[in-house]
C-alpha cells in the first residue's frame, strides 16, 4: 500500500510538474516532500486521535466531543491517551500510523518533540490536522507537512476579557491579575491581549491600543491555573492591595479560588470587586448566575465538529488557512442561565 501511494504521488507530480520534474531527480524529491498527502472523498473515514491525557475536565470534554461527533457521522475513531507523557504520545502516534487511518487528528503535547511525528505521518501518506496546540514551524509547516492547525486565539481571549472589564467598570478599576502557569502559551497570550488593551501596547512598533487612563494593574502574579493557588495568591495580594476593585484571572479555576479568598476576607465578589476570567467551565457559568463572577470568555474544548468539517473541506480540495481560528463564545449574566450544566 505504501508503494502504491507513493507511485500515485509521483504520477500526480509528473502530470503537474511535467518536464521540469523529469530533468532532475532531486527536484522530484523536493516536490514530493512538499506535497501534502491526499485525502479521498468517502462516505466514512477512519480517524486516528491521540489525546495528551484525560486528567482535567477540559481534556475530557475535548475527547468526548471527538467521540460524539465521530459516532454521529459514522466515522471510526482510533483513540489513544498518552497520560500527559510526551514520549508515550510519540509512541501512540507511531502505532496509530501503523494502523493506517485515513487521517490523523491530535493535540501535540509539546511543540518540539511531536513535530517529527507529524513528518512521520506525512511520509506514511497520512494527512494530519493539529488541534488546540501547534508544533514548531521550523520543523513542520502547516500547508506543507500538515493540513492546518485548529485552535483558539488566546491573545484575543485576553482582549475580550479586557473589553468587557473596561465596559463593566466604566473604565475605572484597580486590577489584580492572576496569571496562568509561568511560560505556558495560554498564560503569555492571555496576559498580552489583556495588558495591551489596559496599558496600551504595540505590535511591531505601531501602537495597537491606547492605555485606558482609569485602569490600573496593581499586581500580576501566577496562580498556576489552579483553584488552590489562585485562592492563596489572591488572599495574599488582597492584604497588600486592599484597594482592589477588579480581578482578571487567566482561567476560571483561579477566578473561583479568588472568589473564595474575597469572601473569606469579608468582601462581596461581583459587587465591590468585579471578576472576569477565561475558559467557560460549568462552575464559572454557575458563578455568573450567582452574581459572583462577571463574565468568562470561552476557550472551547468542543473540537469534534470543526475538526471533521475542516477534514471534509480538505477532501473537497478547498483552500485552508494555516490556522483555523476557533470561534469562542462569551458568557455573562445576559446568557449564562441557558448554559448552566451544559459546558464541561
Amino acid at each position: 500500500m505504501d508503494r502504491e501511494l507513493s507511485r500515485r504521488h509521483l504520477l500526480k507530480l509528473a502530470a503537474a510538474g511535467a518536464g521540469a520534474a523529469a530533468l532532475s531527480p532531486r527536484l522530484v524529491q523536493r516536490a514530493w516532500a512538499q506535497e501534502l498527502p491526499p485525502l479521498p472523498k468517502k462516505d466514512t473515514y477512519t480517524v486516528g486521535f491521540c489525546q495528551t491525557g484525560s486528567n482535567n475536565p477540559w481534556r475530557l470534554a475535548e475527547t468526548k466531543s471527538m467521540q460524539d461527533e465521530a459516532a454521529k457521522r459514522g466515522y471510526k475513531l482510533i483513540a489513544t491517551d498518552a497520560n500527559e507523557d510526551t514520549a508515550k504520545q510519540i509512541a501512540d502516534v507511531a502505532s496509530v500510523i501503523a494502523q493506517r487511518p485515513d487521517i490523523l487528528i491530535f493535540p501535540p503535547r509539546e511543540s518540539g518533540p511531536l513535530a517529527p511525528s507529524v513528518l512521520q505521518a506525512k511520509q506514511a501518506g497520512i494527512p494530519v490536522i493539529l488541534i488546540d496546540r501547534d508544533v514548531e514551524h521550523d520543523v513542520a509547516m502547516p500547508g506543507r507537512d500538515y493540513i492546518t492547525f485548529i485552535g483558539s486565539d488566546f491573545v484575543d481571549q485576553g482582549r475580550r476579557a479586557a473589553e468587557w472589564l473596561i465596559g463593566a467598570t466604566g473604565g475605572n478599576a484597580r486590577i489584580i491579575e492572576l496569571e496562568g502557569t509561568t511560560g505556558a502559551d495560554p498564560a503569555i497570550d492571555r496576559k498580552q491581549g489583556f495588558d495591551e488593551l489596559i496599558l496600551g501596547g504595540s505590535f511591531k512598533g505601531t501602537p495597537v491600543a491606547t492605555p485606558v487612563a482609569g485602569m490600573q494593574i496593581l499586581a500580576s502574579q501566577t496562580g498556576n491555573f489552579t483553584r488552590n493557588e489562585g485562592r492563596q495568591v489572591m488572599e495574599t495580594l488582597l492584604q497588600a492591595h486592599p484597594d482592589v476593585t477588579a480581578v482578571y484571572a487567566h482561567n476560571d479555576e483561579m477566578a473561583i479560588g479568588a472568589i473564595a479568598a474575597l469572601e473569606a476576607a469579608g468582601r462581596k465578589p461581583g459587587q465591590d470587586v468585579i471578576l472576569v476570567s477565561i475558559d467557560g467551565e460549568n462552575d464559572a457559568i454557575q458563578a455568573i448566575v450567582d452574581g459572583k463572577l462577571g463574565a468568562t470568555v470561552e476557550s472551547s474544548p468542543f473540537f469534534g465538529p470543526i475538526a471533521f468539517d475542516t477534514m471534509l473541506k480538505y477532501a473537497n480540495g478547498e483552500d485552508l488557512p494555516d490556522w483555523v481560528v476557533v470561534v469562542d463564545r462569551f458568557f455573562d449574566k445576559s446568557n449564562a442561565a441557558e448554559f448552566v450544566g451544559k459546558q464541561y
Partner: protein
Amino acid sequence: MANSSRASVRTRSLSSVTGRLTVPERFGDAGQTYGALAALILIVLYNAFFTRNFLTEQALRVNLTQVATIVIVATGMTLVIATGGIDLSVGSLMAISGALAAIIFMSQRGPLDNALIGNTLAFVVPVLVAGAFGLFNGTLITAFRLQPIIATLVLFLAGRGIAQVMTNGELRTFRNPGFQYIGMGRPFGIPFQVILMLVIVAIVAWVMRSTTFGRYVLATGDNEAAARLAGVPIDRIKLAVYGINGLLAGIAGLIVIAINSSSDANQVGQLMELDAIAAVAVGGTPLTGGRATIVGTLIGALIIQLLRYTLLSHGVPDAAARVVIAGAIVLAVLLQRQRGT
C-alpha cells in the same frame, strides 16, 4: 569480615544508642531551633516595617491557614526523616483522601444520605485509608527492604492515578458546610485547621520528647543496626511512622478540598512532598536521621510561608521568588551542616 571488627562496631554503636537514650539532645536541638527562630523573627520584623497591612488579624489568619496543611504533613515527615527515611507519596495520599471524602459525602445511597453519618464517614474513612497506604509504604520498606525513596515513589506515581480513577479524572465541586468545617470553620474566630495544626504539633512534639516511642524513632534513624541489637523493634517503628505520616497526609487532603469546595485529584497535594521536606530541612532536622525537632519543622514551614508571602506582597515575579526560596533552603541546610561538624 573478622569477628573482632564486627564486635567493635557493635560496641561503639551500642554506646552511641544508650548515650542517646539517656541524655536527650536538648542542647543540639535548641541551637538549631533558635537558629531557625532567629530567621523567622527577622522575616516578621521586615514585614512589620515594609509590608502593607502585615500586622493585622487578617494577615495572620491568611498565613496560618495557608501554612496549616504543610505543617501537618511536615510533622509526619519529620518522624519519617528522623528514622532515616523519606516519604514522597504524601501529596498523592492527600489526593486519594480528598477524592474519597468527596465520593462518600456526595453519594446519596443508603445510610450515607444522612448528613451526619455521611460526613462522619467522610472524615474517618479517607484518613484511615491514607493511613493504610502509609502502612503499605512501611511494609515495602520493612518486609521487602526497599529503599524509602523508591518504596514511596511507587505511591507517589500510582497514588495520584488511583485518585484520578476514583473520580474519573473529573473535578468535583460541592457545598457541604458540615464537612467543610474542617477547612472553613472558625471557632472563637480561629480557623479550625489552625487549631488542628497546633494540636497535632503539640501531641507529636510531646511524643518525641517524652515517650519511649520517640526515643525508638531517633534510635532507628541514628544507627539502625545498633538499635536493632539494643532491642528496638525497628520494623514496627518504621511501619508506625509511615502509617502516621499517611494519616496526617489524609487529614491535610480533607482540609484542602474543604477550603476549595472542590476535590481535584490532579491538583490536591501537588508538590506537597517537596514543601514538607523543605520545611523539615529548614527547621533543622538533618535528613540523615537520628535527630528531630517538631517545633523546628513548624518554624521551618512558617519561614517558607512568610518568604512566599513577602515576595508575593512586594510584587516579585514567581520565577525570581522560586530562586530566593531555593536559596533560603540551601542557606539553612548549609548553616546546620556547619553546626553539626
